[in-house]
């Protein structure tokens, strides 16, 4: 017979205003096995917890029920409290009388009655609880970072710095990501390459970091501490170990018309190419769609010219199996497609460009060698108009409902840089709001206005059209209530950003949840911003939400510290709420193993009885370290041999009984 204590929380007035806690206490005190019941203002407070601890000892309680907020909130807290008082932490049940009672009901009688039922149900369940002990598993001391942009790079460097091995898987031929395409960075205006490339080199030189570029994650198995990942290394057709990055092949390639994705397709590159001068690894790659040799079998010029014999047209995709203790997702972003925004004339006018295209046009390694020339005729634009919020904050279905966060700052940066380099250029910016929360951010934006004389117009553009070679930007100026038309030479669209499309596939492979905008969902918006609901998986960068470089780097380091904390452990305590099979009832039919997503179930031939009565039967055995406790097997098992600790069939049936008891 259990000795149960019931603790009812007022949660200030959150519960007590709608639920008559005294009545609930009285009612629950009368329940079988209950030897103590009381209520308190804040059960989760230090004093509340002390009350629980005292009563556990005073009444020699075998289990406690806390009627309070959601178990998702404080189940862990009260388990620790119980443990501190010498109780098994799994002898705690929570009745959710806040989120699922006091907060949704107005009528006090109704809410009180429901609270009593929820309390009784928890007590009934607790009578069937048994003390549980968590199992332990080892930890593979290596991390995987998916995505080799600034987030992935920073994260990998931090993990490596702590002495752990880390692999970066990057789908493009080089690491560097979006940041490598940027010209300057706000709010300090340092050159992006100058601060990024040393980090890239550090990655390449670190003994702890292994780079898998031009590679993708093919398959993920396992669980926290013990992930097994299959990596697909796409065929480069160039032997990475031999290529010296001399560039002779590029110079000799006759197929030169491939669009240069690194330069946002503003110019072309050969079929065999190194994405940019500082690429890591500095190794060429052949675009099979464009290579004459691979398409027709004829050519082979690069192979002939290569001094080190690195070209290998027969190379095939390779698969590598690696094991990891933790995984960081840092898959980054891309600007949205502008098909839905042709009022800005992007499709029809070469001189309407996105901000990322402008970055390339201003970059010394870009198609114009850093001289700002407009794409249509390579002339210096004299009037440049920026349009902010292109596709951001748009709930019409054409764009994205969120604020892309980085556009205000980079637009100010662009405007400022242009005015600095080409003072004779007139720069206008159409804005809805200028959002600059961040250290030295507003000061930066104000400098653009005050020091560089950038013309900020509060209003939005309705149409951009070409008239006699000028781009006419027609928009509103809300402050003087006019409609303005600005004849411009170049129009720059601050295009909304969205998660890189590859993230969906990654999310499903790692079973992390993803929101309607394809951003990955963190475990808690405030308190677990870099963790995922899936243990051992962490997030960094724009895959989780729009961010600028400083924020991305902080998050990457935060994720790295979480990874290091995990890898530093030799053993991980598991969740004891796992499945277990009653071997006396198991028939060994093997259905359970087929539904187990973790491969936690195996079968053994076991001898039952002794001597002449001995029989050998095949029975299921659950590996508690691998089982994650979903319960799929319990329903598949026809003989009822499989059950789940913490959510046993008899417990759930008891809950049903008490909920339905009228």
């Amino acid at each position, binding site marked *: 017979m259990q000795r149960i204590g019931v603790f009812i929380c007022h949660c200030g007035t959150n519960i007590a205003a709608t639920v008559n806690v005294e009545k609930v206490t009285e009612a629950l005190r009368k329940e079988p096995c209950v030897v103590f019941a009381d209520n308190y203002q804040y059960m989760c407070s230090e004093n509340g917890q002390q009350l629980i601890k005292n009563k556990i000892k005073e009444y020699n309680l075998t289990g406690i029920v806390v009627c309070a907020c959601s178990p998702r909130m404080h189940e862990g807290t009260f388990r620790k409290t119980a443990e501190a008082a010498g109780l098994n932490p799994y002898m705690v049940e929570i009745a959710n009388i806040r989120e699922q009672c006091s907060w949704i009901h107005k009528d006090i009688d109704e809410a009180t009655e429901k609270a009593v039922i929820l309390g009784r149900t928890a007590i009934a369940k607790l009578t069937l609880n048994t003390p549980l002990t968590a199992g332990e598993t080892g930890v593979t001391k290596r991390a995987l970072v998916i995505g080799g942009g600034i987030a992935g790079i920073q994260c990998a460097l931090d993990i490596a710095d702590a002495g752990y091995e880390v692999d970066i898987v990057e789908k493009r031929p080089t690491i560097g990501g979006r940041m490598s395409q940027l010209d300057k960075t706000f709010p300090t205006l340092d050159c992006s390459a100058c601060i990024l490339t040393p980090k890239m080199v550090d990655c390449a030189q670190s003994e702890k970091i292994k780079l898998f570029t031009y590679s993708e994650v093919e398959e993920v198995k396992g669980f926290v501490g013990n992930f097994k990942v299959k990596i697909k290394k796409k065929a480069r057709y160039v032997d990475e170990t031999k290529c010296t990055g001399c560039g002779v092949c590029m110079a000799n390639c006759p197929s030169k018309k491939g669009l240069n994705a690194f330069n946002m397709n503003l110019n072309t590159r050969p079929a065999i190419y190194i994405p940019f001068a500082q690429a890591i690894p500095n190794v060429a790659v052949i675009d099979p769609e464009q290579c004459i040799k691979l398409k027709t079998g004829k050519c082979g010029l690069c192979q002939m010219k290569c001094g080190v014999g690195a070209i290998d047209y027969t190379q095939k995709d390779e698969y590598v199996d690696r094991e990891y203790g933790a995984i960081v997702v840092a898959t980054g972003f891309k600007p949205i497609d502008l098909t839905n925004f042709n009022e800005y004339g992007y499709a029809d006018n070469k001189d309407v460009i996105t901000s990322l295209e402008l970055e390339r046009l201003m970059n010394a390694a870009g198609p114009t060698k850093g001289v700002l020339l407009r794409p249509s005729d390579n002339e210096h634009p004299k009037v440049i108009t920026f349009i902010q919020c292109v596709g951001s*904050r748009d709930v019409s279905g054409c764009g994205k409902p969120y604020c892309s966060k980085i556009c205000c700052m980079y637009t100010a940066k662009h405007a400022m840089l242009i005015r600095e380099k080409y003072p004779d250029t007139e720069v206008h910016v159409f804005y*809805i709001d200028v959002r600059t929360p961040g250290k030295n951010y507003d000061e930066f934006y104000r400098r653009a206005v005050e020091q560089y004389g950038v013309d900020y117009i509060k209003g*939005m553009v309705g149409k951009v059209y070409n008239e006699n070679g000028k781009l006419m930007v*027609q*928009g*509103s100026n*809300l402050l003087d209530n006019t409609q303005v038309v600005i004849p411009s030479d170049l129009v720059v669209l601050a295009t909304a950003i969205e998660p890189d499309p590859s993230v969906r596939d990654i999310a499903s492979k790692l079973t992390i949840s993803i929101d309607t905008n394809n951003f990955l969902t963190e475990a808690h918006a405030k308190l677990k911003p870099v963790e995922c609901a899936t243990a051992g998986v962490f997030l960094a960068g724009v895959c989780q939400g729009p961010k600028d470089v400083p924020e991305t780097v902080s998050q990457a380091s935060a994720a790295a510290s979480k990874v290091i904390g995990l890898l530093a452990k030799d053993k991980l305590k598991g969740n004891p709420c796992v499945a277990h099979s009653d071997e006396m009832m198991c028939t060994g039919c093997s259905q359970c193993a087929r539904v187990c997503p973790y491969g936690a179930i195996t079968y053994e031939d076991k001898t039952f009885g002794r001597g002449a009565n001995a029989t050998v039967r095949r029975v299921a055995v659950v590996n508690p370290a691998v089982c994650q406790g979903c319960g799929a097997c319990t329903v598949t098992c026809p003989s009822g041999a499989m059950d789940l600790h913490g959510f046993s069939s008899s417990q759930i049936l008891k809950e049903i009984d008490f909920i339905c008891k009228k």
Partner: protein
Amino acid sequence: MENFDIEYIKEISRTDVRKCMKCGKCSGRCPAFNDMDIKPHQFVTLLGQGKFDVLLKSKAIFSCLSCMACVERCPRGVAPANVIEAVRDTVERMQNGNAIKAEDIPPIVDDLIPQQLLVSAYRKYRK
């Protein structure tokens, strides 16, 4: 008798002006902007502010072309054209205030005028 007030306009306009984020794209796009005393974005704001009298005095309600450019381009799913029409309908219904009378028509009709124009104008300007 109907009760003509700000709520009436809100009701018949079939649009939620609270969704407006004051970006001004409607007015940036409007082809009749310069002929309007109250601009498209202001219609939305004024309705939100409940400025019934100001709205009723607007001349712009007769300049709106119902071209739907503002509706099409609103990033927040607000329909300024609906507000303008709702104000015009209210004005016409309240005062029986038809903007054009039958006798106004013959002098402005020419040989080519399509029936559609007369019907449309009648629909827009008379109740």
